[in-house]
């Protein structure tokens, strides 16, 4: 019986391990995820800008990437945060929403080369913002 109780307590501890408020490290990982989405979206936008891709592929894949950005934004917005990183969390949410909207433009105009150029430019700016935010979070870790 004692052994079973120990296993149950251990399992409960493991389950609760990720249930606390969002800390700096987790926020940093969220920003990394957004950076990866932005980087991939830039590759997709590059294909659109140079007319080197298929519209259907762009539309479907852009939808998936936009969902990833939206999902990360919701996840960060819903989490309670550890003291001292509220501003960074809000900044990450705002960038994630911008990312979602920008990728959404490709979903709407998957065959428009000019839109591709514009989206690529905006994504470069978003990637820079994420990079800066990520560096600030890592420096204070």
């Amino acid at each position, binding site marked *: 019986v004692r052994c079973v109780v120990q296993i149950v307590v251990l399992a409960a501890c493991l389950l609760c391990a990720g249930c606390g408020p969002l800390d700096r490290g987790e926020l940093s990982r969220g920003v990394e995820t957004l950076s990866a989405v932005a*980087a991939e979206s830039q590759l997709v936008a590059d294909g659109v800008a*140079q007319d*080197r891709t298929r519209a259907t*592929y762009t539309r*479907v894949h852009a939808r998936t990437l936009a969902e990833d950005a939206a999902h990360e934004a919701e996840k960060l917005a819903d989490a309670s945060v550890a003291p001292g990183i509220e501003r960074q969390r809000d900044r990450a949410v705002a960038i994630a929403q911008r990312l979602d909207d920008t990728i959404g433009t490709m979903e709407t105009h998957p065959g428009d080369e000019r839109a591709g150029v514009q989206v690529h430019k905006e994504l470069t700016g978003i990637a820079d913002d994420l990079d800066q935010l990520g560096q600030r979070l890592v420096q204070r870790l």
Partner: protein
Amino acid sequence: VKVVLRIALGIIAAIGGFVDIGDVVFNTQAGAQFGYELLWAVPIGVVGITVYAEMSGRVAAVTRRPVFDVIRTRLGLPTGLVVLVASLFVNVLTLSAEIGGVALVLQLFFDAPFTLFALLGALGMVTIIWFTPFEGLERLFGYLGLALFVFVAAALHEHPDWHSVGGGFVPEAKSSTLYWYFVVGLIAAALMPYEVYFYSSGAVEERWTPNDLLVNRLNAVVGYGIGGLLSLGLMVAAAQMFAPAGVVPDHLGTVPLLAQIPYGEAGLVLALLGMLFAIGGAAVDASFAAAYSIAQFAGWEWGKYRRPSGAPRFTLAWLVFFALDLGILMTGIDPLELTEYSVVLSVVALPLTYIPVLLIARDRTFMGEHANGPVARVLGWLYMVILVVVAVAAIPLLLATNAGGG
């Protein structure tokens, strides 16, 4: 031409088994996250599956007994039943993932709801399997899956740093659990048990005899060699194009970018076609492997070379597996997550699958002059040790890395 056509079994087994949805994603992720550092894990998997596929094909050609027949004979009914249940569980996960992969690729081609393409994809594959003879299936999926070579061409096109590529073939001892999770995943993905169930049963389907042992050896070496080359191509291309950009390929749709970047729309279409047929081939492999296992264990009539009325329970089995797996997909589960779990969980069944093959392949009372020689014997036991180590490490690594999620 005849020889090329006769090695189709190895090619479909390799394309379907080696470069299925799991491998496409695992190799691309490994290259994107670790650059060339994990290249060494690919040849370990290739040599392992080549050794055991050759052995299982040889056993089938000499004794006319496929792997599951051998498992039951060698391990006895109770242990055989455990292996059967474990392998069916993994096969069900694998087949769901492959049907899901086919649906995802069709979605990237035509943009319609995933569930619709899952249904159409499964119906399409059932129709093709029903009306096409075994050899036709091998050739259709095996040869069209070779369009995946566009990834090898893409890797070469981007002029890899050959010094770094060479360095990637030297194993490194790292403390990162994610690194070891990928090592286990890459080796396990190469040695998925359904590959040898399909391969050895295919040898019986094609009525191999001891006269076909050279064809068997060519099938194993060329087929899995091609599979390994494709895996390396994906990893090197991802190391060149995704790693510097910071892309983390979590979606099947990310992979074709590797061909689109150097070759534009033509590369994209070739990549999607190759993925469609490779993953479709894996679905055929997995569905047949499940039906072969259960039919051989239960002693039913089996074989695609028979008409459905000649092997009704076998035919019903693969149809039921397709229906069951379609049902699983309709719950909305992510095919890529399914793949990761099926690959890592299959590792636990690996030693139980391969030990009976090894034991019977070395047994002169069964195999006569065709029993394992010194090279096969040494490699067979060496890989058995590797399989046991990998099997012990798989589940802790799966939990420690949150299934590769870090």
